[in-house]
């Protein structure tokens, strides 16, 4: 295990160009080379980040601006990090081909390797269902489940092969994932593990990530098409909106507690918010060109963006609490 500290190097408040007066943008520098891929809010107010190129979980304290990192194991290269129902950090660690749990109180690290015959799966992202089962995707063409109580890991082959990427749980605990190379939204039957493919109306859209709003509607960031799309499982409908700009590339998507949709456009080096009520986009610049934000997550009143290209975390404080 290795620890180091990094003090706050960048803390900028941008008052201009914000669509709502209450919103503030702040940027924090992380240890050089950390390559924060994903981020998740820790229960104590800190932020966790997957330090992919350090093979570590990062623990960042917004109050002090200090970050430290805890190594996850040999060859570790975590892609995703989420907060589990147990208050621990759960990482999808492509380097170890394993699911990793980090206990914030004891700092114990527990590793569940995928079955040996699975081979390298390029583990991507995870979500918990309503029964506490941990579901994960692997971009090489798999998805799977881990029962934290028994430790049993099951792996399933994805329809259309390679591509499983973002994954989310709806408020009623159902689990959906998207396939980047397969360009589909999939619903997992949590009992059998089977996937029902839900084809979007835009062919070859390149579904990168997916997030549920409070009504259980699925919002999808489409990399190839540059669209934001939404599927409503209640009536089977789809809607899509083209991101502004000449050549948008929609990477990450997240829906906040007000059902405002957030996404990152690599074509414009910008963060966008989208209000489903008005169907209007608002744009926020990332901290630098090539910031490469690959995921978004937050807590009420805060939306966090890990900048893998600059080793920074950016936060937008929305001024909302619910």
């Amino acid at each position, binding site marked *: 295990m290795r620890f180091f500290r990094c003090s706050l190097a960048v803390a900028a408040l941008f008052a201009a160009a914000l669509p709502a007066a209450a919103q503030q943008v702040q940027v924090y520098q992380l240890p050089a080379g950390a390559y924060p891929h994903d981020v998740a809010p820790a229960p104590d107010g800190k932020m966790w980040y997957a330090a992919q190129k350090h093979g570590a979980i990062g623990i960042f304290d917004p109050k002090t601006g200090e970050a430290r990192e805890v190594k996850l194991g040999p060859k570790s290269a975590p892609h995703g990090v989420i907060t589990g129902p147990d208050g621990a950090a759960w990482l999808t660690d492509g*380097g170890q081909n394993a699911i990793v749990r980090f206990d914030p109180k004891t700092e114990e690290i527990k590793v569940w390797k995928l079955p040996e015959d699975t081979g*390298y799966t390029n583990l991507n992202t995870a979500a918990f269902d309503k029964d506490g089962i941990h579901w994960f995707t692997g971009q090489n063409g798999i998805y799977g489940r881990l029962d934290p109580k028994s430790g049993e890991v099951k792996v399933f082959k994805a329809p259309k092969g390679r591509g499983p990427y973002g994954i989310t749980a709806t408020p009623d605990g159902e689990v959906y994932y998207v396939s980047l190379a397969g360009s589909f939204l999939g619903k997992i039957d949590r009992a059998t593990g089977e996937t029902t493919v839900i084809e979007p109306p835009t062919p070859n859209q390149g579904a990168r990530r997916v997030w549920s709003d409070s009504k259980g509607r699925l919002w999808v960031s489409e990399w190839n098409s540059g669209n934001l799309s939404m599927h409503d499982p209640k009536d089977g409908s789809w809607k899509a909106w083209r991101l502004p700009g000449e050549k948008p590339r929609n990477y990450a998507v997240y829906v906040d507690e007000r059902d405002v949709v957030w996404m990152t456009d690599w074509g414009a080096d910008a963060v966008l918010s989208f209000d489903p009520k008005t169907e209007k986009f608002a744009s926020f610049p990332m901290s630098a060109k090539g910031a490469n934000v690959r995921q978004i997550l937050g807590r009420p009143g805060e939306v966090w963006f890990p900048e893998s290209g600059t080793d920074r975390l950016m936060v937008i404080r929305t001024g909302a609490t619910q």
Partner: protein
Amino acid sequence: MTMLAVAALFSCEAARAAGDPARGERAFQYCYSCHTVDPNEKATLQGPNLVGIVGRRIAAQEGFEYSPALRAFAREHGAWSEDLLDRYVADPETVVPKTTMAFRGVEEADERADLIAYLKAQPKP
């Protein structure tokens, strides 16, 4: 010092020469989610097709949007030699800073040798 460097270089070349394409197919799983070696691949993947990559001009697949970093690297280095590919696969970010390829690299030299042997063995169209 020179002798050591030569020995290290020889050792590196020897390791690559011993690369096993059959084992390399397993190593290719590191690349598989974003790359193909199928010249007829229909899926839109996030990385370029690797058919004939050894010896190919860098950042030269028609229609593929390479990062500015890789395009600049191509202007400097020209083509993918085995040595250059080996260095890149070992540590992409160090060899091409700001590359958008989100991959930490393959640490073991023999595994990289297997991978390169596999890539070389793939039939060209």
